[in-house]
């Protein structure tokens, strides 16, 4: 366990030492989205009855920031270590495959939670959003962070250059999070795009998370939970296999 704890500590210290960039900056970005969108759309759009657009937007933005930062943490740590060569410091010691995997995932979740909570607490100044089901919100936050942490780890191991990682991030992660219903309910979409949205696993993460706040969601939260849990299990299995085989890590 000491090996796991140390790697987790190192991964957290790594982002914490540059927390302006890794925690504060994404919170500011989310606030800017909130300011602009709520200014433009407040009073014009009502997604759930009795819920203002700004209040609707806050949990989605917090979750989107959480997800993107969980991905950024594991992926950037991995690619930096590979490119600079200091990955050998974690490859030489007797860390088990599971210790290696969980340290990266937990650190990614922690950074995601810090950013997500940061967004949420700063927005409390404008609108106090109630949390009637905190347990549901927490479960989706943890699983969503875990999924993105695992995706980040996989992408970081796969990529040989920063460029490839940026492609993965900009062409897959960002579109899928943006189109997951952060800024709208998918019920406002034409039927075709609604169907497409149901294929996007990020939609279930955000929809399930939002259920914790509004007691309302586009699909039942249990359905979302099943989808999200299956995704996390599948990605964990893939990442663990990659680590076990040493794919792109041990030549």
């Amino acid at each position, binding site marked *: 366990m*000491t*090996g796991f*704890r*140390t*790697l987790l*500590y*190192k991964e957290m*210290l*790594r982002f914490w*030492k*540059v927390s302006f960039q890794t925690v504060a900056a994404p919170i500011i970005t989310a606030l800017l989205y909130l300011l602009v969108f709520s200014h433009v759309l407040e009073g014009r759009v009502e997604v759930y009855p009795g819920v203002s657009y700004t209040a609707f937007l806050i949990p989605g933005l917090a979750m989107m920031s959480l997800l993107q930062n969980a991905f950024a943490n594991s992926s950037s740590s991995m690619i930096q*270590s590979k490119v*600079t*060569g*200091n990955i*050998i*410091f*974690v*490859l*030489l*010691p*007797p*860390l*088990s495959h599971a210790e290696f995997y969980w340290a990266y995932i937990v650190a990614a979740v922690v950074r995601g939670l810090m950013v997500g909570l940061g967004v949420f607490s700063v927005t409390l100044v404008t609108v106090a959003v109630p949390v009637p089901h905190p347990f549901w919100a927490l479960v989706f936050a943890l699983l969503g962070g875990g999924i993105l942490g695992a995706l980040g780890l996989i992408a970081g191991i796969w990529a040989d250059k920063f460029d490839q990682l940026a492609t993965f991030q900009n062409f897959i992660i960002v579109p899928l999070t943006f189109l997951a219903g952060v800024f709208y309910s998918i019920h406002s979409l034409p039927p075709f795009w609604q169907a497409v949205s149901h294929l996007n696993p990020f939609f279930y993460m955000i929809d399930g998370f939002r259920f914790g706040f509004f007691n309302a969601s586009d699909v039942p939260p249990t359905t979302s939970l099943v989808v999200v849990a299956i995704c996390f299990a599948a990605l964990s299995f893939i990442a663990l296999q990659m680590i076990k085989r*040493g794919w792109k890590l*041990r*030549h």
Partner: protein
Amino acid sequence: MAAAIEVRQVYKRYGDVQALDGVDLTVAPGEFFALLGPNGAGKTTLISVLAGLARADRGTVRVMGFDVRENYREARRALGVVPQELVFDPFFTVRETLRIQSGYFGLRHNETWIDEVIERLDLAAKADANMRALSGGMKRRVLVAQALVHKPPVIILDEPTAGVDVELRQGLWGFVRQLNAAGHTIVLTTHYLEEAETLCSRVAMLKNGRVVALDTTRNLLAGVSGIHLKLRLDPDRLPPGLAEQSVPGPEGYRVLAIQKHADIPDLMIALRQGGIAVQELELLQPDLEEAFVQIMGRR
């Protein structure tokens, strides 16, 4: 007792390059062993396979009796590797780096040993400096410290003195010798053959992924054929009959290769007949470099 390192019929291919081509090697516990060979001979590949950074296509590799794949955790715990590349983590200080490395090996209260390693490698003044702020030589010392942080029974140093000043080199070898005396097995690769000659009791030479020589340093030196005679001549020229025996030597000197000591009187006569006076004469002892050149030149 299990061998410190046991390599059996190991093959490793990278694309078109057969990096390791059936390597067999055993290093006994407590040995000070040199792994020599020209660039691209497979030294670093072999070390990577031992450390689990690369995986052999075929063959078995054990460290202290532990298979590096089947029992990777035990094998890695028994091994400390100083890599050739000057790598570091720019986020941390020297002490943080060593504490973290210690933790990876499952050691939590390791401060006493970390302090000692810092002291012995002359890192105390920089212990709380960020890794980025260190000079190349200092970074190299930290790499050595990282490899020693878990007191591994087997220590591999892949060209630890490349680009390192004389003072550190002396200090480093003093420390490594002490570790060896305390029972640690040391495997060393270096381009400074005189280092290998003075430090190592046994030598393996690699060429194109194969072991072309594996013997005690003493036997390898004894196997060097021919004797070298270093001369300062006035005038500085060689009579025609001797010119073909000339081999490269230091500026201002002529070095002649002869088969046996009994050839020396004839050589002197030839010089005197050519009107050349001998101002200095030295019989050169065969060194590891000569053995290396001869062995690498074969085939």
